[in-house]
């Protein structure tokens, strides 16, 4: 049958020439190639000391944001937990008491907010779901731990540092 694409190439096995049979020219050429690599700069990034730059849309560790006045934005609506496909997020809501207006932006806030970093798949759906722009995955890589328990991050690790203190 005729080829439609005209890309077909018929190859035939030619008998090896003497130079090919003798191995040596090919070996010498190969060793030339490896020698070229010997003097090339290595491409390794020495990780703990040097870090590769993250891309713009890299999703790392979560942080709970504060607003311009340093108040926590989260109102414990639970949409992030609901949107989370890995069910990594849990929280307990609490009511803001009088005198705490400088701490929490709305009347309701998250007393406990926990993310299990072993469950999290860093999909970013929580930050898309959040109506208050309170959670962003803009942090670093989650560091390694020895115990599973230590991977459950509470508010102490998640909430952004207070504005100017």
């Amino acid at each position, binding site marked *: 049958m005729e080829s439609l694409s005209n890309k077909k190439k018929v190859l035939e096995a030619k008998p090896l020439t003497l130079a090919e049979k003798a191995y040596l020219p090919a070996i010498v050429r190969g*060793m030339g190639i*490896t*020698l070229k*690599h010997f003097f090339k700069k*290595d491409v390794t990034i020495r990780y703990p000391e040097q870090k590769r730059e993250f891309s713009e849309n890299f999703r790392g560790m979560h942080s709970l944001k504060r607003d311009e006045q340093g108040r926590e934005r989260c109102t414990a609506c639970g949409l992030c937990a609901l949107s989370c496909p890995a069910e990594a997020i849990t929280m307990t809501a609490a009511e803001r008491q009088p005198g705490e207006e400088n701490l929490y932006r709305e009347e309701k806030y998250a007393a406990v907010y926990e993310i299990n970093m072993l469950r999290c798949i860093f999909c970013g759906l929580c930050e898309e779901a959040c109506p208050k722009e309170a959670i962003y995955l803009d942090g670093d890589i989650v560091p390694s731990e020895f115990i599973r328990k230590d991977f459950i991050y509470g508010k102490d690790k998640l909430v952004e540092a207070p504005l100017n203190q």
Partner: protein
Amino acid sequence: MELADILIKFGLIVVIFLISLVVAMYSTYAERKVAAFFQDRVGPNRAGPWGILQPLADGGKMFMKEEIIPNRASGLLFIVGPSLAIMTACIGSAVIPWGQPLHIGSKVVDLQVTDINVGVLYIFGVVSLGVYGIMIGGWASNNKYSLLGAIRAASQNISYEISMGLAIIALLMVNGTLSLKEIAEQQHGWHWNVIYQPLGFLIFIVCAFAETNRSPFDLPECETELIGGYHTEYSSMKLGFYLFAEYINMFVSSAVMATLYFGGYNYPGMDWVTAHVGPVIGPLIGTVVLFAKIFLFIFFFMWVRWTIPRFRYDQLMNLGWRTLIPLAIANIVLTGIIMTFFGK
């Protein structure tokens, strides 16, 4: 022999033994570094500055590992195997002339442990003894992969020893002696044997790769087919001995190649240098030159390892029996013709 001579010889033996161990130790480090550089990587760099303590860490790890002797293994032979491998690797360096005799005062110190007049044959004997370590270890493991690796090692060594010996015969025709010391002396200055025996050297170096079980002829420990080859069942320092023996073998065969074909401690202009720096420093410079050649050969071993893929077993046998042996015989005939008509 006086007591002083005996002490000097003893010291020389200890020094050479230590040097070959240290060189083998740092060959493991160099191998990993060289491999890394060939692959645009960094290599070990965590233990000490530039990772130079890596061999110590590796050695320490080897000692700490659990010692496992399989239930069905043959107990005594299982231990004899690696011991034999490392022993034969260490005794090979006894006949290598490390430099010209030193003249300290009225004393003449030979930088060679023993100058037996059949030095080349001794090397061959030791090399062929070396395969027993692998064979015994592989057989005693009572493991089919180990056994296959051992059989491969045995047949490979026997096949390549033949062409190695034939390559040496041509060399002996040129040099007319079996003593490594005299062979080294005859290559004074730049009269290196490789100039007279390029084909013989090529055959010899290919065989050296096969004898030391180095890539591309590392079929006895071919991971893709035989798990670990003859040392599949070995752990702890017994495995360490096998791996270490390979590096000592590499060092010794580099030394042999440097001595037989690349002039040993000789270098162009050595007489002039010796006349200017005196009869002690001069020969020592020659020793340094010899070690430079040895390290170049070791580097070459590694360079080849990280370039050429492993041969298939039938290709290995074809190369040994159908190519190298006829080539080596042709080399003998050619050498004979040239020597008859043109003299040396």
